[in-house]
């Protein structure tokens, strides 16, 4: 029982990341009809927003310490962050330590701008082209973006820690009457799960309760009729592309302390997120969220030792296996609408 609870918890944060990326993907597909293979790169850029903020806050001036030597035997150049000099070591250190949460403020405008630039600069020219063309161009764009990040940040992962207050783990086992250390869960992963819940709720509320969202939903249902009513639906869809980019970016920012960001992390999530979208149902926002959490939890279960002993290698294929079964039973996915990608 405790092992099952443990893997459900583990699946929640994996599922959170899948759900957030898949939500943006499906939002773009539902509004613009574009299959965006560069969406994983947006997640990666979000994580590197956190790295960038950490580096900006850690900008330092150099003093020479004659008492210490560097690797060549010269006097050691000691770096002191400006924020520590301005606000004192304690406050300055705390500001640097909080660089990931602070990066959210930085990432929102950056990611919206990146989204606009992608949509206006490239993707809008492929609206009327076949999906295969869209996949090729966006996949190419993803490779360009990750190589750019590698050029500026290198190939090695860059550790971007959570604030000290969120380090360590919470013992759910003790709370639920199990022994100590039986069900532990890191604080930051709890934060990530809650954060993703807020973002997902925010996107749904935006679409459900605002006039802008209502128009977007109408456009998703029947773009032509909304256009005939004199509403510039294209502009709204462009804004939605920016929103989807921001969602993926924020997912990346908050993921940075879970795994050190590297230039390839977007690709690691991309394929799985597409599976999530297809399983959830192309164009279905609730489907994407449901499938994200479901597949995240299943992936966690499949890495349990006794399951691996029973079916070696199952942890590598479980998501694809479940996707095949679901698509055989429900070809439109869990919550797919009739007519979407069926022409």
């Amino acid at each position, binding site marked *: 029982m*405790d*092992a099952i609870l*443990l*893997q459900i*918890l*583990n*699946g929640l*944060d*994996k599922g959170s990341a899948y759900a957030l990326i898949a939500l943006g993907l499906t939002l773009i597909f539902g509004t613009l009809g574009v299959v965006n293979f560069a969406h994983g790169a947006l997640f990666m850029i979000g994580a590197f927003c956190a790295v960038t903020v950490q580096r900006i806050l850690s900008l330092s001036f150099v003093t020479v310490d004659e008492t*210490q030597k*560097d*690797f*060549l035997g010269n006097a*050691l*150049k*000691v*770096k002191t962050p400006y924020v520590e000099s301005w606000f004192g070591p304690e406050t300055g250190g705390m500001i640097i330590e909080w660089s990931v949460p602070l990066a959210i403020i930085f990432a929102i405008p950056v990611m919206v701008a990146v989204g606009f630039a992608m949509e206006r600069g490239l993707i809008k020219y492929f609206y009327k082209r076949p999906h295969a063309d869209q996949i090729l161009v966006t996949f190419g764009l993803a490779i360009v973006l990750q190589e750019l990040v*590698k050029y500026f940040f*290198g*190939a*090695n*992962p*860059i*550790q971007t*820690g959570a604030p000290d207050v969120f*380090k*360590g*783990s919470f013992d759910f086992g003790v709370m639920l009457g199990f022994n100590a*250390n*039986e069900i*532990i*869960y*890191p604080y*930051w*992963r709890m934060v990530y799960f809650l954060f993703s819940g807020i973002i997902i709720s925010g996107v749904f509320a935006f679409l459900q309760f605002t006039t802008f969202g209502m128009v977007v939903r109408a456009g998703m249902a029947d773009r032509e009729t909304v256009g005939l009513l004199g509403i510039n639906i294209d502009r709204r869809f462009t804004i939605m592309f920016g929103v989807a980019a921001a969602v993926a970016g924020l997912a990346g920012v908050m993921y940075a*302390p*879970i*795994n*050190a960001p*590297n230039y*390839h*992390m977007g690709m*690691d999530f991309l394929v799985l997120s597409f599976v999530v979208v297809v399983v959830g149902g192309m164009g279905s926002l609730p489907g994407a969220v449901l499938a994200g959490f479901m597949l995240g939890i299943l*992936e*966690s279960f499949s*890495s*349990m*030792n006794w399951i*691996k002993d029973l079916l070696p*290698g199952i*942890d*590598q294929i479980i998501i694809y296996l479940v996707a095949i079964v679901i698509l055989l039973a429900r070809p439109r996915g869990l919550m797919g609408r009739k007519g979407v990608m069926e022409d």
Partner: protein
Amino acid sequence: MSNSKFTRRGVLKTGAVGGAGLALPTIFTAGSAAAFTNAPTGGTVKFGFNVPQTGPYADEGMDELRAQELAIEHLNGIGDGGMLNTFSSKALGGDGILGKKVEFVTGDTQTKSDAARASAKSMIEKDGVVMINGGSSSGVAVAVQGLCQEAGIIFMAGLTHSNDTTGKDRKANGFRHFFNAYMSGAALAPVLKNAYGADRRAYHLTADYTWGWTQQESIQAATEAMGWETVNNVLTPLATTDFSSYIAPVLNSGADVLVLNHYGGNMINSLTNAVQFGLRDKIVNGKQFEIVVPLYSELMAAGAGENVQGVYGSMNWNWQLQDAGTQAFVKSFGEKYGRPPSNSAHTCYVQTLLYADAVTRAGSFNPCAVAEALEGFEFDGMGNGPTLYRADDHQCFKDVLVMKGKENPTNEYDTLEVVEVTPRAQVEYAPNHPMFGGDEASLGTCNPGA
């Protein structure tokens, strides 16, 4: 009728035999010039540096390439000479190799066996290289070593730590300077016993490929020999990025030590996840929970950040060593590139010099002559103390470093500290050791190629 013994057929036969006789020395001369693959003919000789230039190990590959370029400069008499000044063999004079200027081409392994073989093949067939050096993966090393054996080229391995490289997959044309998983286990175990005691229960997470398997087997055998118990060994797919579902059950297993048989990005992520779960803050079986990373690299330590602090591991070499060879290399490298070299850079640099030295001592680029010169070669002054290139398996035997993540680093390169230099005798083993293919493992015969 003539009784002459000369017939038309007889004259032709005699002429053919005589002609062949006259031509014999020329045939032999020409034959000796082309008796091996890519025999250099002009005033230059070319090396092939096959390193990861793209993919997750691109930074490590870049560091190897820096060291290889430096080695070429030193061989051609440019710069301060680096380790040529401290190397016990004095065959090299900084004037190229056997009077030929050394050039190089590079290939991108992408840390993929098929890509590495393709780039090595291209360098051998199109660029005419006489030796391939580099790499950051045992899978790649085994694949390229096999190719070099078939092509008749010497392979001077870069960073490859699997027992198999000089174990069951050893080849007559392949040589490894880097240490191996068995040596890591043999060096680490006594230090772990001193630090954590003999009564420990270890849980292993192991990368599911050749290096991970041999690393796990080695460290398990070494730790069990000193009294530790192995609770479980879980194989993790190489593509795993989030290890939480593998780490979460560790505390429940009754283990009080987690051994991460992971390298590169896998290690950075698994260690980060383990620290996130607060494993190192827990008390299990009345003891502080500990994490061990058997194989360290400087880039991994930098990627893992403060998570490595206090964590034990092992290395082939480290720039902080104080011997003359290390200091000469660190000075050359540091002044040229503004950073200390990694242990993968060091092994590539040393391998390049060792190959050049062997050619010079053999007086030939023929791979079989070079192999003979390397086999059983004892040397010093290259940063690892007295070292032997064992003839039986082409594995270098030298001291091994036990490292620990530094608690209070003073700068970005100050991530690890040397805890112990384990003497060579402690990490030696028989060439037919079961972990290295047993009695069936064989180098085969040297292949000179063409």
